[in-house]
Protein backbone atom coordinates (compact mmCIF):
# COMPACT_ATOMS: atom_id res chain seq x y z
CA UNK A 1 0.00 0.00 0.00
CA UNK A 2 2.75 2.40 1.04
CA UNK A 3 4.77 1.52 -2.04
CA UNK A 4 1.75 2.13 -4.20
CA UNK A 5 1.07 5.56 -2.69
CA UNK A 6 4.71 6.56 -3.13
CA UNK A 7 4.74 5.38 -6.72
CA UNK A 8 1.53 7.25 -7.50
CA UNK A 9 2.98 10.38 -5.89
CA UNK A 10 6.12 10.10 -7.98
CA UNK A 11 3.98 9.57 -11.07
CA UNK A 12 1.96 12.68 -10.26
CA UNK A 13 5.09 14.79 -9.94
CA UNK A 14 6.25 13.51 -13.32
CA UNK A 15 2.90 14.40 -14.88
CA UNK A 16 3.00 17.92 -13.45
CA UNK A 17 6.54 18.35 -14.78
CA UNK A 18 5.49 17.16 -18.23
CA UNK A 19 2.45 19.47 -18.37
CA UNK A 20 4.56 22.41 -17.22
CA UNK A 21 7.16 21.72 -19.90
CA UNK A 22 4.50 21.51 -22.60
CA UNK A 23 3.22 24.87 -21.40
CA UNK A 24 6.69 26.39 -21.42
CA UNK A 25 7.32 25.22 -24.98
CA UNK A 26 3.93 26.43 -26.19
CA UNK A 27 4.64 29.94 -25.00
CA UNK A 28 8.23 30.20 -26.24
CA UNK A 29 7.79 28.59 -29.64
CA UNK A 30 4.81 30.70 -30.63
CA UNK A 31 5.24 33.27 -33.39
CA UNK A 32 3.87 36.17 -31.34
CA UNK A 33 6.34 38.19 -29.28
CA UNK A 34 5.28 37.87 -25.64
CA UNK A 35 7.14 41.02 -24.73
CA UNK A 36 5.31 43.20 -27.22
CA UNK A 37 2.82 44.25 -24.59
CA UNK A 38 5.55 45.26 -22.17
CA UNK A 39 7.56 47.39 -24.50
CA UNK A 40 6.84 51.06 -24.64
CA UNK A 41 7.59 52.95 -27.79
CA UNK A 42 10.86 54.80 -27.66
CA UNK A 43 12.24 52.61 -24.92
CA UNK A 44 16.04 52.58 -24.90
CA UNK A 45 17.90 49.39 -25.76
CA UNK A 46 19.32 49.18 -22.25
CA UNK A 47 15.96 49.57 -20.59
CA UNK A 48 14.57 46.89 -22.88
CA UNK A 49 17.34 44.43 -21.98
CA UNK A 50 16.89 45.16 -18.31
CA UNK A 51 13.20 44.41 -18.63
CA UNK A 52 13.80 41.17 -20.54
CA UNK A 53 16.22 40.03 -17.88
CA UNK A 54 13.75 40.83 -15.13
CA UNK A 55 11.18 38.64 -16.79
CA UNK A 56 13.68 35.81 -17.41
CA UNK A 57 13.52 36.11 -21.18
CA UNK A 58 17.24 36.24 -21.95
CA UNK A 59 19.62 33.45 -22.93
CA UNK A 60 19.02 30.29 -24.94
CA UNK A 61 15.75 28.40 -24.77
CA UNK A 62 17.42 25.81 -22.54
CA UNK A 63 18.69 28.47 -20.09
CA UNK A 64 15.21 29.98 -19.96
CA UNK A 65 13.75 26.54 -19.32
CA UNK A 66 16.14 25.80 -16.46
CA UNK A 67 15.44 29.19 -14.93
CA UNK A 68 11.71 28.69 -15.36
CA UNK A 69 11.63 25.27 -13.68
CA UNK A 70 13.95 26.56 -10.95
CA UNK A 71 11.60 29.45 -10.21
CA UNK A 72 8.58 27.17 -10.14
CA UNK A 73 10.26 24.85 -7.64
CA UNK A 74 11.01 27.80 -5.41
CA UNK A 75 7.38 28.82 -5.69
CA UNK A 76 8.27 31.97 -7.62
CA UNK A 77 5.77 32.36 -10.41
CA UNK A 78 6.88 35.79 -11.53
CA UNK A 79 4.94 39.01 -11.83
CA UNK A 80 1.82 39.67 -13.78
CA UNK A 81 2.47 42.00 -16.73
CA UNK A 82 -0.91 43.61 -16.36
CA UNK A 83 -1.36 43.87 -12.61
CA UNK A 84 2.35 44.61 -12.05
CA UNK A 85 2.46 42.47 -8.95
CA UNK A 86 3.35 38.84 -8.06
CA UNK A 87 1.11 36.31 -9.75
CA UNK A 88 0.26 34.65 -6.45
CA UNK A 89 -1.18 37.86 -5.07
CA UNK A 90 -3.51 38.01 -8.04
CA UNK A 91 -4.50 34.34 -8.16
CA UNK A 92 -4.62 33.54 -4.43
CA UNK A 93 -7.99 35.17 -3.64
CA UNK A 94 -9.41 34.06 -6.97
CA UNK A 95 -8.85 30.38 -6.14
CA UNK A 96 -11.10 30.79 -3.12
CA UNK A 97 -13.78 32.46 -5.24
CA UNK A 98 -13.66 29.65 -7.81
CA UNK A 99 -13.86 26.94 -5.15
CA UNK A 100 -16.87 28.68 -3.62
CA UNK A 101 -18.80 28.07 -6.80
CA UNK A 102 -17.24 24.78 -7.89
CA UNK A 103 -17.36 22.61 -4.76
CA UNK A 104 -20.90 23.28 -3.48
CA UNK A 105 -22.19 23.35 -7.06
CA UNK A 106 -20.67 19.99 -7.89
CA UNK A 107 -21.84 18.43 -4.61
CA UNK A 108 -25.36 19.73 -5.06
CA UNK A 109 -25.40 18.33 -8.59
CA UNK A 110 -24.01 15.00 -7.39
CA UNK A 111 -26.52 14.61 -4.55
CA UNK A 112 -29.57 15.58 -6.61
CA UNK A 113 -28.31 13.63 -9.61
CA UNK A 114 -27.59 10.39 -7.78
CA UNK A 115 -30.86 10.62 -5.86
CA UNK A 116 -32.81 10.91 -9.08
CA UNK A 117 -30.55 8.26 -10.62
CA UNK A 118 -31.60 5.72 -8.00
CA UNK A 119 -35.26 6.51 -8.70
CA UNK A 120 -34.83 6.11 -12.45
CA UNK A 121 -32.68 3.00 -11.99
CA UNK A 122 -35.36 1.25 -9.96
CA UNK A 123 -38.21 2.31 -12.21
CA UNK A 124 -39.68 -0.52 -14.30
CA UNK A 125 -37.52 -1.19 -17.36
CA UNK A 126 -38.99 0.40 -20.45
CA UNK A 127 -41.59 2.26 -18.39
CA UNK A 128 -42.55 5.91 -18.49
CA UNK A 129 -40.41 7.08 -15.57
CA UNK A 130 -37.31 5.48 -17.02
CA UNK A 131 -37.85 6.84 -20.51
CA UNK A 132 -38.68 10.38 -19.40
CA UNK A 133 -35.84 10.42 -16.88
CA UNK A 134 -33.24 9.26 -19.37
CA UNK A 135 -34.58 11.53 -22.08
CA UNK A 136 -34.51 14.67 -19.93
CA UNK A 137 -31.09 13.83 -18.51
CA UNK A 138 -29.65 13.33 -22.00
CA UNK A 139 -31.13 16.59 -23.27
CA UNK A 140 -29.99 18.63 -20.27
CA UNK A 141 -26.54 17.08 -20.55
CA UNK A 142 -26.35 18.60 -24.02
CA UNK A 143 -26.94 22.16 -22.81
CA UNK A 144 -23.65 24.09 -22.94
CA UNK A 145 -22.56 25.62 -19.62
CA UNK A 146 -22.94 29.20 -20.82
CA UNK A 147 -26.45 28.51 -22.12
CA UNK A 148 -27.46 27.33 -18.63
CA UNK A 149 -25.98 30.54 -17.27
CA UNK A 150 -27.74 32.74 -19.81
CA UNK A 151 -31.07 30.98 -19.18
CA UNK A 152 -30.76 31.40 -15.40
CA UNK A 153 -29.88 35.06 -15.86
CA UNK A 154 -32.80 35.64 -18.18
CA UNK A 155 -35.35 34.02 -15.88
CA UNK A 156 -34.20 34.75 -12.33
CA UNK A 157 -32.34 37.99 -12.81
CA UNK A 158 -33.97 39.86 -15.71
CA UNK A 159 -37.55 38.60 -15.64
CA UNK A 160 -38.12 37.92 -11.95
CA UNK A 161 -35.39 40.14 -10.50
CA UNK A 162 -34.70 37.70 -7.66
CA UNK A 163 -30.96 37.57 -8.02
CA UNK A 164 -28.22 40.02 -9.06
CA UNK A 165 -26.81 39.54 -12.57
CA UNK A 166 -23.09 39.90 -12.01
CA UNK A 167 -20.19 40.11 -9.60
CA UNK A 168 -19.63 38.70 -6.18
CA UNK A 169 -21.04 41.41 -3.95
CA UNK A 170 -22.55 44.86 -3.98
CA UNK A 171 -20.23 47.78 -4.51
CA UNK A 172 -20.22 48.74 -0.85
CA UNK A 173 -19.57 45.17 0.39
CA UNK A 174 -16.57 44.42 2.68
CA UNK A 175 -13.43 43.27 0.98
CA UNK A 176 -12.06 41.12 3.82
CA UNK A 177 -12.59 37.44 4.56
CA UNK A 178 -15.82 38.28 6.36
CA UNK A 179 -17.46 39.07 3.05
CA UNK A 180 -17.91 35.35 2.41
CA UNK A 181 -20.27 35.15 5.36
CA UNK A 182 -22.67 37.88 4.33
CA UNK A 183 -26.13 37.37 2.86
CA UNK A 184 -25.17 39.67 0.04
CA UNK A 185 -22.42 37.23 -1.01
CA UNK A 186 -24.75 34.23 -0.87
CA UNK A 187 -27.27 36.17 -2.90
CA UNK A 188 -24.67 36.67 -5.63
CA UNK A 189 -23.40 33.10 -5.30
CA UNK A 190 -26.78 31.44 -5.84
CA UNK A 191 -27.10 31.61 -9.63
CA UNK A 192 -23.55 30.56 -10.61
CA UNK A 193 -23.75 27.73 -8.08
CA UNK A 194 -27.07 26.51 -9.45
CA UNK A 195 -25.63 26.70 -12.97
CA UNK A 196 -22.78 24.36 -12.00
CA UNK A 197 -25.19 22.01 -10.24
CA UNK A 198 -27.47 21.78 -13.27
CA UNK A 199 -24.45 21.22 -15.47
CA UNK A 200 -23.37 18.14 -13.49
CA UNK A 201 -26.73 16.73 -12.47
CA UNK A 202 -27.54 14.73 -15.62
CA UNK A 203 -24.18 12.97 -15.84
CA UNK A 204 -24.57 11.89 -12.21
CA UNK A 205 -28.08 10.73 -12.84
CA UNK A 206 -27.07 8.60 -15.81
CA UNK A 207 -24.04 7.11 -14.04
CA UNK A 208 -26.05 6.22 -10.95
CA UNK A 209 -28.87 4.82 -13.02
CA UNK A 210 -26.51 2.56 -15.01
CA UNK A 211 -24.94 1.37 -11.76
CA UNK A 212 -28.31 0.55 -10.23
CA UNK A 213 -29.56 -1.22 -13.37
CA UNK A 214 -26.39 -3.31 -13.51
CA UNK A 215 -26.69 -4.20 -9.84
CA UNK A 216 -30.39 -4.83 -9.46
CA UNK A 217 -30.26 -8.33 -10.92
CA UNK A 218 -27.22 -9.41 -8.90
CA UNK A 219 -27.51 -12.33 -6.51
CA UNK A 220 -27.01 -10.24 -3.40
CA UNK A 221 -30.08 -8.18 -4.24
CA UNK A 222 -32.12 -11.38 -4.54
CA UNK A 223 -30.76 -12.46 -1.18
CA UNK A 224 -31.56 -9.20 0.56
CA UNK A 225 -34.98 -9.30 -0.99
CA UNK A 226 -35.55 -12.91 0.06
CA UNK A 227 -34.84 -11.83 3.63
CA UNK A 228 -38.00 -9.74 3.36
CA UNK A 229 -36.29 -6.36 3.47
CA UNK A 230 -38.29 -3.35 2.33
CA UNK A 231 -37.80 -1.91 -1.16
CA UNK A 232 -36.16 1.25 0.11
CA UNK A 233 -33.54 -0.79 2.01
CA UNK A 234 -32.88 -2.85 -1.11
CA UNK A 235 -32.47 0.34 -3.12
CA UNK A 236 -30.02 1.60 -0.51
CA UNK A 237 -27.91 -1.57 -0.91
CA UNK A 238 -27.64 -1.18 -4.66
CA UNK A 239 -27.07 2.55 -4.36
CA UNK A 240 -24.05 1.94 -2.15
CA UNK A 241 -22.59 -0.43 -4.67
CA UNK A 242 -23.30 1.94 -7.52
CA UNK A 243 -21.56 4.77 -5.72
CA UNK A 244 -18.12 3.44 -6.66
CA UNK A 245 -17.98 4.67 -10.24
CA UNK A 246 -19.58 7.90 -9.05
CA UNK A 247 -16.85 8.62 -6.55
CA UNK A 248 -14.06 7.92 -9.02
CA UNK A 249 -15.89 10.28 -11.31
CA UNK A 250 -16.38 12.96 -8.67
CA UNK A 251 -12.74 13.94 -8.13
CA UNK A 252 -11.77 14.38 -11.75
CA UNK A 253 -15.14 16.07 -12.15
CA UNK A 254 -14.12 18.59 -9.48
CA UNK A 255 -10.95 19.29 -11.42
CA UNK A 256 -12.91 19.58 -14.64
CA UNK A 257 -15.40 21.90 -12.94
CA UNK A 258 -12.63 24.18 -11.83
CA UNK A 259 -11.30 24.10 -15.39
CA UNK A 260 -14.65 24.24 -17.18
CA UNK A 261 -16.22 26.79 -14.87
CA UNK A 262 -14.58 29.45 -17.06
CA UNK A 263 -17.73 30.04 -19.07
CA UNK A 264 -19.97 30.23 -15.99
CA UNK A 265 -17.60 32.73 -14.39
CA UNK A 266 -17.67 34.81 -17.55
CA UNK A 267 -21.48 34.79 -17.83
CA UNK A 268 -21.93 35.88 -14.22
CA UNK A 269 -18.79 38.08 -14.15
CA UNK A 270 -17.66 36.02 -11.17
CA UNK A 271 -14.08 36.95 -10.21
CA UNK A 272 -12.48 33.50 -10.32
CA UNK A 273 -9.37 31.85 -11.74
CA UNK A 274 -11.08 30.89 -15.00
CA UNK A 275 -12.28 34.42 -15.74
CA UNK A 276 -8.84 35.78 -14.90
CA UNK A 277 -7.31 33.25 -17.32
CA UNK A 278 -9.50 34.50 -20.17
CA UNK A 279 -8.71 38.12 -19.27
CA UNK A 280 -4.98 37.34 -19.01
CA UNK A 281 -5.06 35.67 -22.42
CA UNK A 282 -6.70 38.66 -24.06
CA UNK A 283 -4.23 41.01 -22.34
CA UNK A 284 -1.31 38.78 -23.39
CA UNK A 285 -0.26 38.65 -19.76
CA UNK A 286 1.63 35.43 -20.07
CA UNK A 287 3.18 34.93 -16.60
CA UNK A 288 -0.38 35.10 -15.26
CA UNK A 289 -1.74 32.82 -18.00
CA UNK A 290 0.99 30.26 -17.39
CA UNK A 291 0.47 30.26 -13.65
CA UNK A 292 -3.30 30.01 -13.84
CA UNK A 293 -2.91 27.09 -16.21
CA UNK A 294 -0.27 25.44 -14.01
CA UNK A 295 -2.56 25.79 -11.02
CA UNK A 296 -5.45 24.12 -12.82
CA UNK A 297 -3.20 21.26 -14.01
CA UNK A 298 -1.94 20.61 -10.47
CA UNK A 299 -5.52 20.54 -9.19
CA UNK A 300 -6.43 17.90 -11.78
CA UNK A 301 -3.43 15.74 -10.92
CA UNK A 302 -4.23 15.94 -7.20
CA UNK A 303 -7.87 15.12 -7.83
CA UNK A 304 -6.96 12.04 -9.89
CA UNK A 305 -4.52 10.91 -7.22
CA UNK A 306 -7.18 11.29 -4.53
CA UNK A 307 -9.67 9.37 -6.65
CA UNK A 308 -7.29 6.41 -7.09
CA UNK A 309 -6.46 6.21 -3.40
CA UNK A 310 -10.06 6.58 -2.20
CA UNK A 311 -11.29 4.00 -4.70
CA UNK A 312 -8.97 1.44 -3.13
CA UNK A 313 -10.28 2.25 0.33
CA UNK A 314 -13.91 1.88 -0.71
CA UNK A 315 -13.63 -1.20 -2.88
CA UNK A 316 -11.97 -4.13 -1.12
CA UNK A 317 -11.67 -5.89 -4.47
CA UNK A 318 -8.99 -3.45 -5.60
CA UNK A 319 -5.52 -4.85 -4.97
CA UNK A 320 -2.60 -2.43 -4.87
CA UNK A 321 0.40 -3.57 -6.79
Amino acid sequence: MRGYVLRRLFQSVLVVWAVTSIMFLMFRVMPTDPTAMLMDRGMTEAARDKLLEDWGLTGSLWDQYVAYIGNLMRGDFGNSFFHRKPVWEVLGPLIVNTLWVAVPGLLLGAVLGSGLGVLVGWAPRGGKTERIGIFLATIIRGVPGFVIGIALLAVFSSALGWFPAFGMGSVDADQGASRYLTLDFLHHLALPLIAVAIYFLPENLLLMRSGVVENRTEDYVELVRAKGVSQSRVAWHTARNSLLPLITWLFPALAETIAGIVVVEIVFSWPGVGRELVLAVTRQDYPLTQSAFFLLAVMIVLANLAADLIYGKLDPRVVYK
Partner: protein
Amino acid sequence: MRLVMKDSFVAMGVAILLFFIVIATFATVLAPYGPYEVMMTEAGRLDRLARPSFEHPLGTTAYGNDVLSQFIHGSRVALIVGLVAAVAVGFVSTVFGVVAGYFGGLVDDVLMRITDVALSIPTLPFAIVAVSLLGPSVQNIILVISILFWRNGARIIRSAVLTERERIYVKWARAAGASHFHVILHHILPNIVRVIFLWITMSVAFAILAEASLSFLGLGDPTVISWGQMLNTAFSSGSLRTAWWWVVPPCIALTLLVSSLYLIGRGFEEQTNPRLRRY
Protein backbone atom coordinates in the same frame (compact mmCIF):
# COMPACT_ATOMS: atom_id res chain seq x y z
CA MET B 1 -29.85 0.80 -39.09
CA ARG B 2 -31.69 -1.73 -36.98
CA LEU B 3 -30.64 0.31 -33.98
CA VAL B 4 -32.36 3.39 -35.39
CA MET B 5 -35.63 1.53 -35.95
CA LYS B 6 -35.66 -0.06 -32.52
CA ASP B 7 -34.77 2.87 -30.32
CA SER B 8 -36.97 5.96 -30.58
CA PHE B 9 -34.33 8.11 -28.80
CA VAL B 10 -31.78 7.23 -31.43
CA ALA B 11 -34.33 7.93 -34.16
CA MET B 12 -35.01 11.36 -32.66
CA GLY B 13 -31.30 12.10 -32.42
CA VAL B 14 -30.72 11.12 -36.03
CA ALA B 15 -33.68 13.25 -37.16
CA ILE B 16 -32.36 16.37 -35.38
CA LEU B 17 -28.85 15.79 -36.70
CA LEU B 18 -30.13 15.37 -40.28
CA PHE B 19 -32.20 18.53 -39.92
CA PHE B 20 -29.09 20.56 -39.08
CA ILE B 21 -27.05 18.87 -41.82
CA VAL B 22 -29.70 19.94 -44.36
CA ILE B 23 -29.68 23.51 -43.03
CA ALA B 24 -25.89 23.67 -43.16
CA THR B 25 -25.71 22.20 -46.67
CA PHE B 26 -28.21 24.63 -48.15
CA ALA B 27 -27.27 27.58 -45.92
CA THR B 28 -26.57 29.95 -48.80
CA VAL B 29 -29.98 29.20 -50.35
CA LEU B 30 -31.96 29.23 -47.11
CA ALA B 31 -30.51 32.36 -45.58
CA PRO B 32 -32.40 35.47 -46.74
CA TYR B 33 -29.35 37.75 -46.37
CA GLY B 34 -25.59 37.47 -45.95
CA PRO B 35 -24.48 36.81 -42.36
CA TYR B 36 -22.70 40.14 -42.11
CA GLU B 37 -24.94 42.11 -44.46
CA VAL B 38 -25.91 45.38 -42.81
CA MET B 39 -29.65 46.14 -42.75
CA MET B 40 -30.99 49.63 -43.20
CA THR B 41 -34.37 51.02 -42.30
CA GLU B 42 -36.38 52.90 -44.91
CA ALA B 43 -35.18 56.13 -43.40
CA GLY B 44 -31.63 55.07 -44.26
CA ARG B 45 -30.62 54.38 -40.67
CA LEU B 46 -28.92 51.24 -39.35
CA ASP B 47 -31.71 48.77 -38.54
CA ARG B 48 -30.36 47.69 -35.18
CA LEU B 49 -32.00 45.45 -32.57
CA ALA B 50 -35.24 45.24 -34.56
CA ARG B 51 -37.84 42.87 -33.16
CA PRO B 52 -38.86 39.87 -35.30
CA SER B 53 -40.86 41.02 -38.32
CA PHE B 54 -41.86 39.80 -41.76
CA GLU B 55 -38.56 40.89 -43.38
CA HIS B 56 -36.48 39.68 -40.43
CA PRO B 57 -38.23 36.64 -38.91
CA LEU B 58 -35.74 36.59 -36.02
CA GLY B 59 -35.08 40.32 -35.84
CA THR B 60 -31.70 42.01 -36.19
CA THR B 61 -28.56 42.29 -34.05
CA ALA B 62 -27.07 45.36 -32.43
CA TYR B 63 -24.97 45.82 -35.57
CA GLY B 64 -27.89 45.56 -37.96
CA ASN B 65 -27.29 41.99 -39.12
CA ASP B 66 -30.16 39.61 -39.82
CA VAL B 67 -30.33 37.06 -36.97
CA LEU B 68 -31.94 34.31 -39.03
CA SER B 69 -29.19 34.49 -41.66
CA GLN B 70 -26.45 34.39 -39.02
CA PHE B 71 -28.24 31.52 -37.34
CA ILE B 72 -28.44 29.47 -40.56
CA HIS B 73 -24.81 30.14 -41.48
CA GLY B 74 -23.72 29.35 -37.93
CA SER B 75 -24.77 25.72 -38.35
CA ARG B 76 -21.91 25.24 -40.81
CA VAL B 77 -19.09 25.97 -38.38
CA ALA B 78 -20.63 23.76 -35.71
CA LEU B 79 -20.98 20.79 -38.05
CA ILE B 80 -17.64 21.22 -39.83
CA VAL B 81 -15.71 21.58 -36.59
CA GLY B 82 -17.68 18.73 -35.02
CA LEU B 83 -17.27 16.25 -37.86
CA VAL B 84 -13.67 17.00 -38.87
CA ALA B 85 -12.39 17.09 -35.30
CA ALA B 86 -14.29 13.91 -34.42
CA VAL B 87 -12.81 11.98 -37.34
CA ALA B 88 -9.32 13.16 -36.38
CA VAL B 89 -9.94 12.30 -32.73
CA GLY B 90 -11.37 8.90 -33.67
CA PHE B 91 -8.38 8.10 -35.85
CA VAL B 92 -5.74 9.08 -33.28
CA SER B 93 -7.55 7.37 -30.38
CA THR B 94 -7.94 4.19 -32.39
CA VAL B 95 -4.28 4.06 -33.39
CA PHE B 96 -3.15 4.77 -29.83
CA GLY B 97 -5.65 2.43 -28.21
CA VAL B 98 -5.10 -0.46 -30.60
CA VAL B 99 -1.31 -0.27 -30.53
CA ALA B 100 -1.20 0.04 -26.73
CA GLY B 101 -3.79 -2.65 -26.10
CA TYR B 102 -2.64 -5.13 -28.71
CA PHE B 103 1.10 -5.06 -28.15
CA GLY B 104 0.99 -4.48 -24.38
CA GLY B 105 4.23 -4.52 -22.37
CA LEU B 106 6.62 -1.62 -22.77
CA VAL B 107 4.74 -0.08 -25.72
CA ASP B 108 1.57 -0.04 -23.63
CA ASP B 109 3.40 1.46 -20.65
CA VAL B 110 4.93 4.28 -22.66
CA LEU B 111 1.71 5.10 -24.53
CA MET B 112 -0.38 5.02 -21.36
CA ARG B 113 2.04 7.34 -19.53
CA ILE B 114 1.68 9.77 -22.44
CA THR B 115 -2.08 9.43 -22.09
CA ASP B 116 -1.82 10.11 -18.34
CA VAL B 117 -0.01 13.37 -19.03
CA ALA B 118 -2.57 14.32 -21.67
CA LEU B 119 -5.41 13.56 -19.25
CA SER B 120 -3.99 16.02 -16.72
CA ILE B 121 -4.28 18.92 -19.13
CA PRO B 122 -7.24 21.13 -18.14
CA THR B 123 -9.44 20.98 -21.24
CA LEU B 124 -10.99 24.40 -21.72
CA PRO B 125 -8.06 26.41 -20.28
CA PHE B 126 -5.67 24.58 -22.63
CA ALA B 127 -7.96 25.32 -25.56
CA ILE B 128 -8.18 29.00 -24.58
CA VAL B 129 -4.42 29.40 -24.30
CA ALA B 130 -3.57 27.32 -27.37
CA VAL B 131 -6.12 28.98 -29.65
CA SER B 132 -5.09 32.47 -28.57
CA LEU B 133 -1.41 31.64 -29.18
CA LEU B 134 -1.98 29.92 -32.51
CA GLY B 135 -4.46 32.53 -33.65
CA PRO B 136 -8.23 32.06 -33.76
CA SER B 137 -9.18 30.24 -36.96
CA VAL B 138 -11.40 27.24 -37.69
CA GLN B 139 -8.37 25.10 -38.57
CA ASN B 140 -6.59 25.91 -35.31
CA ILE B 141 -9.72 25.25 -33.28
CA ILE B 142 -10.05 21.83 -34.94
CA LEU B 143 -6.37 21.13 -34.30
CA VAL B 144 -6.60 22.05 -30.61
CA ILE B 145 -9.77 19.99 -30.11
CA SER B 146 -8.09 16.98 -31.74
CA ILE B 147 -5.06 17.38 -29.48
CA LEU B 148 -7.35 17.47 -26.45
CA PHE B 149 -9.84 14.67 -26.93
CA TRP B 150 -7.88 11.72 -28.34
CA ARG B 151 -6.73 10.85 -24.82
CA ASN B 152 -10.05 9.68 -23.36
CA GLY B 153 -10.81 7.63 -26.47
CA ALA B 154 -7.40 5.97 -26.43
CA ARG B 155 -8.18 4.59 -22.96
CA ILE B 156 -11.63 3.34 -23.88
CA ILE B 157 -10.48 1.68 -27.10
CA ARG B 158 -7.45 0.17 -25.40
CA SER B 159 -9.57 -1.63 -22.84
CA ALA B 160 -11.84 -2.91 -25.60
CA VAL B 161 -8.78 -4.25 -27.44
CA LEU B 162 -7.49 -5.89 -24.27
CA THR B 163 -10.49 -8.21 -24.14
CA GLU B 164 -10.47 -8.91 -27.89
CA ARG B 165 -6.78 -9.76 -27.85
CA GLU B 166 -7.36 -12.75 -25.57
CA ARG B 167 -9.94 -14.38 -27.85
CA ILE B 168 -9.10 -17.83 -29.05
CA TYR B 169 -9.35 -17.01 -32.74
CA VAL B 170 -6.76 -14.26 -32.35
CA LYS B 171 -4.33 -16.80 -30.93
CA TRP B 172 -5.14 -19.25 -33.71
CA ALA B 173 -4.68 -16.60 -36.38
CA ARG B 174 -1.28 -15.77 -34.92
CA ALA B 175 -0.36 -19.45 -34.69
CA ALA B 176 -1.42 -19.90 -38.32
CA GLY B 177 1.18 -17.31 -39.24
CA ALA B 178 -0.95 -14.18 -39.70
CA SER B 179 0.94 -10.90 -39.30
CA HIS B 180 0.14 -8.48 -36.47
CA PHE B 181 -1.26 -6.08 -39.03
CA HIS B 182 -3.54 -8.76 -40.46
CA VAL B 183 -4.79 -9.76 -37.01
CA ILE B 184 -5.52 -6.15 -36.04
CA LEU B 185 -7.30 -5.41 -39.30
CA HIS B 186 -9.34 -8.59 -39.59
CA HIS B 187 -9.85 -9.88 -36.06
CA ILE B 188 -9.58 -6.92 -33.68
CA LEU B 189 -10.97 -3.87 -35.48
CA PRO B 190 -14.23 -5.45 -36.70
CA ASN B 191 -15.04 -6.35 -33.10
CA ILE B 192 -14.40 -2.95 -31.61
CA VAL B 193 -16.03 -0.95 -34.38
CA ARG B 194 -19.01 -0.13 -32.15
CA VAL B 195 -16.84 1.24 -29.41
CA ILE B 196 -15.02 3.40 -31.96
CA PHE B 197 -18.29 4.68 -33.40
CA LEU B 198 -19.62 5.49 -29.95
CA TRP B 199 -16.46 7.42 -29.23
CA ILE B 200 -16.61 9.33 -32.52
CA THR B 201 -20.26 10.26 -31.89
CA MET B 202 -19.39 11.61 -28.46
CA SER B 203 -16.38 13.44 -29.90
CA VAL B 204 -18.62 15.31 -32.35
CA ALA B 205 -20.60 16.56 -29.36
CA PHE B 206 -17.48 17.49 -27.37
CA ALA B 207 -15.98 19.27 -30.36
CA ILE B 208 -19.15 21.30 -30.99
CA LEU B 209 -19.31 22.24 -27.30
CA ALA B 210 -15.64 23.21 -27.27
CA GLU B 211 -15.96 25.37 -30.39
CA ALA B 212 -19.09 27.04 -29.01
CA SER B 213 -17.40 27.76 -25.68
CA LEU B 214 -14.30 29.20 -27.34
CA SER B 215 -16.41 31.37 -29.63
CA PHE B 216 -18.53 32.49 -26.71
CA LEU B 217 -15.34 33.55 -24.91
CA GLY B 218 -14.39 35.63 -27.94
CA LEU B 219 -11.79 33.20 -29.30
CA GLY B 220 -13.74 32.04 -32.33
CA ASP B 221 -12.72 32.53 -35.94
CA PRO B 222 -13.58 36.20 -36.57
CA THR B 223 -14.12 35.63 -40.30
CA VAL B 224 -16.97 33.10 -40.06
CA ILE B 225 -20.14 33.36 -38.01
CA SER B 226 -20.88 30.67 -35.42
CA TRP B 227 -23.54 30.25 -32.76
CA GLY B 228 -21.06 30.78 -29.95
CA GLN B 229 -19.94 33.97 -31.60
CA MET B 230 -23.50 35.27 -31.95
CA LEU B 231 -23.87 34.87 -28.19
CA ASN B 232 -20.50 36.50 -27.62
CA THR B 233 -21.54 39.53 -29.66
CA ALA B 234 -24.87 39.72 -27.85
CA PHE B 235 -23.07 39.44 -24.51
CA SER B 236 -20.39 42.03 -25.21
CA SER B 237 -22.84 44.51 -26.72
CA GLY B 238 -24.94 44.25 -23.56
CA SER B 239 -28.04 42.95 -25.34
CA LEU B 240 -28.00 39.52 -23.71
CA ARG B 241 -30.87 40.37 -21.39
CA THR B 242 -33.05 42.36 -23.75
CA ALA B 243 -32.74 40.98 -27.29
CA TRP B 244 -34.24 37.53 -26.71
CA TRP B 245 -34.76 36.98 -30.46
CA TRP B 246 -31.00 37.21 -30.89
CA VAL B 247 -30.02 35.02 -27.91
CA VAL B 248 -32.59 32.22 -27.87
CA PRO B 249 -32.02 30.69 -31.37
CA PRO B 250 -28.29 29.88 -31.00
CA CYS B 251 -28.88 28.59 -27.45
CA ILE B 252 -31.61 26.22 -28.57
CA ALA B 253 -29.71 25.10 -31.66
CA LEU B 254 -26.57 24.24 -29.70
CA THR B 255 -28.57 22.33 -27.12
CA LEU B 256 -30.52 20.39 -29.75
CA LEU B 257 -27.47 19.51 -31.80
CA VAL B 258 -25.37 18.35 -28.86
CA SER B 259 -28.30 16.49 -27.28
CA SER B 260 -29.04 14.72 -30.56
CA LEU B 261 -25.52 13.30 -30.53
CA TYR B 262 -25.85 12.22 -26.91
CA LEU B 263 -29.15 10.53 -27.76
CA ILE B 264 -27.45 8.59 -30.57
CA GLY B 265 -24.48 7.81 -28.33
CA ARG B 266 -26.74 6.45 -25.61
CA GLY B 267 -28.30 4.01 -28.05
CA PHE B 268 -24.85 2.65 -28.88
CA GLU B 269 -23.98 2.44 -25.20
CA GLU B 270 -27.05 0.39 -24.31
CA GLN B 271 -26.12 -1.93 -27.15
CA THR B 272 -22.46 -2.33 -26.30
CA ASN B 273 -23.01 -2.88 -22.58
CA PRO B 274 -24.96 -6.14 -22.30
CA ARG B 275 -25.63 -5.55 -18.60
CA LEU B 276 -27.78 -2.53 -19.47
CA ARG B 277 -29.90 -4.46 -21.97
CA ARG B 278 -33.42 -5.41 -21.14
CA TYR B 279 -34.01 -8.92 -19.93
